[in-house]
Protein backbone atom coordinates (compact mmCIF):
# COMPACT_ATOMS: atom_id res chain seq x y z
CA UNK A 1 0.00 0.00 0.00
CA UNK A 2 1.55 3.36 -0.97
CA UNK A 3 2.29 5.58 2.01
CA UNK A 4 2.65 8.85 0.11
CA UNK A 5 0.11 10.44 -2.19
CA UNK A 6 0.45 13.88 -3.78
CA UNK A 7 -1.76 15.59 -6.34
CA UNK A 8 -0.09 18.09 -8.65
CA UNK A 9 -2.16 20.49 -10.76
CA UNK A 10 -1.41 20.52 -14.47
CA UNK A 11 0.75 23.35 -15.75
CA UNK A 12 -0.29 25.30 -18.83
CA UNK A 13 2.46 27.17 -20.73
CA UNK A 14 1.18 30.21 -22.69
CA UNK A 15 -1.02 29.19 -25.61
CA UNK A 16 -0.75 25.49 -24.82
CA UNK A 17 -2.99 22.86 -23.35
CA UNK A 18 -2.37 22.12 -19.70
CA UNK A 19 -0.11 19.12 -19.19
CA UNK A 20 1.64 17.00 -16.55
CA UNK A 21 4.56 19.12 -15.38
CA UNK A 22 6.09 18.64 -11.93
CA UNK A 23 8.08 21.12 -9.81
CA UNK A 24 11.57 19.66 -9.57
CA UNK A 25 14.69 20.86 -7.81
CA UNK A 26 17.81 19.95 -9.78
CA UNK A 27 20.99 19.85 -7.70
CA UNK A 28 24.59 19.38 -8.71
CA UNK A 29 25.91 17.08 -5.95
CA UNK A 30 29.45 18.45 -6.32
CA UNK A 31 28.83 22.21 -6.25
CA UNK A 32 25.49 21.98 -4.32
CA UNK A 33 24.10 24.59 -6.73
CA UNK A 34 20.46 24.02 -7.56
CA UNK A 35 17.67 25.24 -9.78
CA UNK A 36 13.91 24.70 -9.72
CA UNK A 37 12.11 23.85 -12.91
CA UNK A 38 8.69 22.65 -14.12
CA UNK A 39 9.62 19.39 -15.86
CA UNK A 40 7.39 17.45 -18.23
CA UNK A 41 6.37 13.90 -17.29
CA UNK A 42 7.30 11.81 -20.35
CA UNK A 43 6.37 8.16 -19.94
CA UNK A 44 7.73 7.49 -23.45
CA UNK A 45 11.25 8.60 -22.54
CA UNK A 46 13.65 5.92 -21.27
CA UNK A 47 15.55 8.44 -19.16
CA UNK A 48 15.36 12.04 -17.99
CA UNK A 49 16.73 14.73 -20.28
CA UNK A 50 18.10 18.10 -19.18
CA UNK A 51 19.12 21.03 -21.35
CA UNK A 52 22.44 22.82 -21.81
CA UNK A 53 22.00 26.02 -19.83
CA UNK A 54 20.47 24.25 -16.85
CA UNK A 55 23.63 22.13 -16.75
CA UNK A 56 25.75 25.30 -16.88
CA UNK A 57 23.80 27.14 -14.16
CA UNK A 58 24.33 24.35 -11.62
CA UNK A 59 28.04 24.31 -12.39
CA UNK A 60 28.66 21.37 -14.75
CA UNK A 61 30.72 21.69 -17.94
CA UNK A 62 28.40 20.15 -20.56
CA UNK A 63 30.95 18.68 -22.97
CA UNK A 64 34.00 18.68 -20.71
CA UNK A 65 36.97 16.37 -21.35
CA UNK A 66 36.13 13.54 -18.98
CA UNK A 67 32.36 13.70 -19.47
CA UNK A 68 30.77 10.49 -20.74
CA UNK A 69 28.71 10.99 -23.87
CA UNK A 70 26.16 8.78 -25.56
CA UNK A 71 23.70 8.79 -28.43
CA UNK A 72 19.96 9.17 -27.90
CA UNK A 73 17.31 8.57 -30.54
CA UNK A 74 14.05 10.53 -30.59
CA UNK A 75 10.69 10.14 -32.30
CA UNK A 76 11.95 11.79 -35.50
CA UNK A 77 14.45 8.94 -35.94
CA UNK A 78 17.52 11.14 -35.83
CA UNK A 79 20.24 10.65 -33.27
CA UNK A 80 21.14 13.30 -30.72
CA UNK A 81 24.40 13.42 -28.82
CA UNK A 82 23.99 13.65 -25.07
CA UNK A 83 26.43 14.08 -22.20
CA UNK A 84 25.91 12.46 -18.81
CA UNK A 85 26.19 14.54 -15.67
CA UNK A 86 25.39 13.67 -12.08
CA UNK A 87 22.40 15.29 -10.43
CA UNK A 88 20.13 14.84 -7.46
CA UNK A 89 16.48 15.20 -8.44
CA UNK A 90 14.11 16.42 -5.74
CA UNK A 91 10.35 16.44 -6.11
CA UNK A 92 8.83 19.49 -4.43
CA UNK A 93 5.55 19.62 -2.55
CA UNK A 94 2.60 20.75 -4.75
CA UNK A 95 1.75 23.67 -2.44
CA UNK A 96 4.63 24.20 0.00
CA UNK A 97 7.27 24.45 -2.71
CA UNK A 98 10.16 24.86 -0.28
CA UNK A 99 9.46 21.34 0.97
CA UNK A 100 10.95 18.28 -0.70
CA UNK A 101 8.70 15.21 -0.70
CA UNK A 102 11.01 12.81 -2.55
CA UNK A 103 14.66 12.82 -3.50
CA UNK A 104 16.72 10.64 -5.82
CA UNK A 105 20.21 9.35 -5.13
CA UNK A 106 23.07 10.86 -7.08
CA UNK A 107 22.30 9.79 -10.64
CA UNK A 108 23.68 10.30 -14.15
CA UNK A 109 21.29 12.23 -16.38
CA UNK A 110 21.53 12.74 -20.15
CA UNK A 111 21.95 16.38 -21.16
CA UNK A 112 21.63 17.93 -24.62
CA UNK A 113 23.50 20.86 -26.12
CA UNK A 114 20.51 23.16 -26.73
CA UNK A 115 17.62 24.62 -24.72
CA UNK A 116 14.78 24.22 -27.19
CA UNK A 117 12.64 21.72 -25.28
CA UNK A 118 11.20 21.27 -21.81
CA UNK A 119 13.15 19.26 -19.26
CA UNK A 120 11.88 15.69 -19.41
CA UNK A 121 11.23 13.29 -16.56
CA UNK A 122 11.71 9.84 -18.04
CA UNK A 123 11.08 6.33 -16.79
CA UNK A 124 14.52 5.03 -15.78
CA UNK A 125 15.69 7.82 -13.50
CA UNK A 126 12.39 9.10 -12.15
CA UNK A 127 9.01 7.59 -13.04
CA UNK A 128 10.04 4.06 -12.09
CA UNK A 129 9.91 5.18 -8.43
CA UNK A 130 6.21 6.08 -8.48
CA UNK A 131 2.72 4.95 -9.28
CA UNK A 132 1.73 7.71 -11.71
CA UNK A 133 -1.82 8.69 -12.66
CA UNK A 134 -2.36 11.32 -15.34
CA UNK A 135 -5.92 12.55 -14.93
CA UNK A 136 -6.56 14.75 -17.97
CA UNK A 137 -10.22 15.27 -17.03
CA UNK A 138 -9.39 16.71 -13.62
CA UNK A 139 -6.05 18.11 -14.87
CA UNK A 140 -4.04 16.41 -12.14
CA UNK A 141 -0.88 14.36 -11.92
CA UNK A 142 -1.17 11.97 -8.99
CA UNK A 143 1.98 10.40 -7.60
CA UNK A 144 2.02 7.57 -5.09
CA UNK A 145 4.92 5.61 -3.60
Amino acid at each position, binding site marked *: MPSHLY*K*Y*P*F*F*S*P*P*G*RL*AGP*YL*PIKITNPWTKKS*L*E*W*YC*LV*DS*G*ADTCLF*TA*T*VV*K*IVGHNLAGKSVKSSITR*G*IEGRTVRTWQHSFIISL*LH*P*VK*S*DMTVWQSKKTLIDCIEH*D*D*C*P*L*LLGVGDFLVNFRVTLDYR*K*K*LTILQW
Partner: protein
Amino acid sequence: MPKTIHVRTHYRNSRFIAIDRADHGRVIAEGRTVMAVHKMAEKTGKAFTMAFVPPKGKKYVF
Protein backbone atom coordinates in the same frame (compact mmCIF):
# COMPACT_ATOMS: atom_id res chain seq x y z
CA MET B 1 -8.38 20.66 -5.16
CA PRO B 2 -5.21 22.27 -6.58
CA LYS B 3 -5.90 24.60 -9.50
CA THR B 4 -4.24 24.33 -12.91
CA ILE B 5 -1.35 26.75 -13.21
CA HIS B 6 -1.98 29.04 -16.19
CA VAL B 7 0.81 31.42 -17.11
CA ARG B 8 0.92 34.32 -19.56
CA THR B 9 3.86 36.12 -21.07
CA HIS B 10 3.98 39.77 -22.12
CA TYR B 11 6.19 39.08 -25.12
CA ARG B 12 5.50 36.61 -27.91
CA ASN B 13 9.17 35.69 -28.24
CA SER B 14 9.71 34.76 -24.61
CA ARG B 15 11.01 31.18 -24.48
CA PHE B 16 11.59 30.91 -20.73
CA ILE B 17 9.79 32.18 -17.67
CA ALA B 18 10.40 32.36 -13.94
CA ILE B 19 7.34 31.91 -11.75
CA ASP B 20 6.98 33.25 -8.23
CA ARG B 21 6.76 30.27 -5.90
CA ALA B 22 4.64 32.11 -3.38
CA ASP B 23 2.14 33.51 -5.90
CA HIS B 24 0.27 30.90 -7.96
CA GLY B 25 1.45 31.23 -11.58
CA ARG B 26 2.70 34.85 -11.42
CA VAL B 27 5.50 35.40 -13.92
CA ILE B 28 8.34 37.45 -12.39
CA ALA B 29 10.77 37.23 -15.33
CA GLU B 30 10.61 36.22 -18.96
CA GLY B 31 12.97 36.25 -21.89
CA ARG B 32 14.61 34.43 -24.76
CA THR B 33 17.40 32.65 -22.92
CA VAL B 34 17.54 30.62 -19.72
CA MET B 35 20.51 32.57 -18.41
CA ALA B 36 18.88 35.99 -18.89
CA VAL B 37 15.65 34.92 -17.20
CA HIS B 38 17.54 33.26 -14.35
CA LYS B 39 19.57 36.42 -13.71
CA MET B 40 16.47 38.66 -13.83
CA ALA B 41 14.56 36.38 -11.45
CA GLU B 42 17.47 36.23 -8.99
CA LYS B 43 17.54 40.04 -8.85
CA THR B 44 13.93 40.09 -7.59
CA GLY B 45 15.07 38.22 -4.47
CA LYS B 46 12.04 35.95 -4.64
CA ALA B 47 12.01 32.16 -4.70
CA PHE B 48 11.11 31.04 -8.21
CA THR B 49 10.60 28.03 -10.46
CA MET B 50 11.52 28.19 -14.14
CA ALA B 51 9.76 26.75 -17.16
CA PHE B 52 10.17 26.41 -20.91
CA VAL B 53 7.67 28.23 -23.14
CA PRO B 54 7.15 26.42 -26.45
CA PRO B 55 6.87 28.77 -29.44
CA LYS B 56 3.37 29.23 -30.84
CA GLY B 57 2.54 27.00 -33.78
CA LYS B 58 5.38 24.59 -33.10
CA LYS B 59 4.28 21.07 -32.27
CA TYR B 60 6.37 18.95 -29.92
CA VAL B 61 6.22 15.16 -29.93
CA PHE B 62 8.41 13.45 -27.36
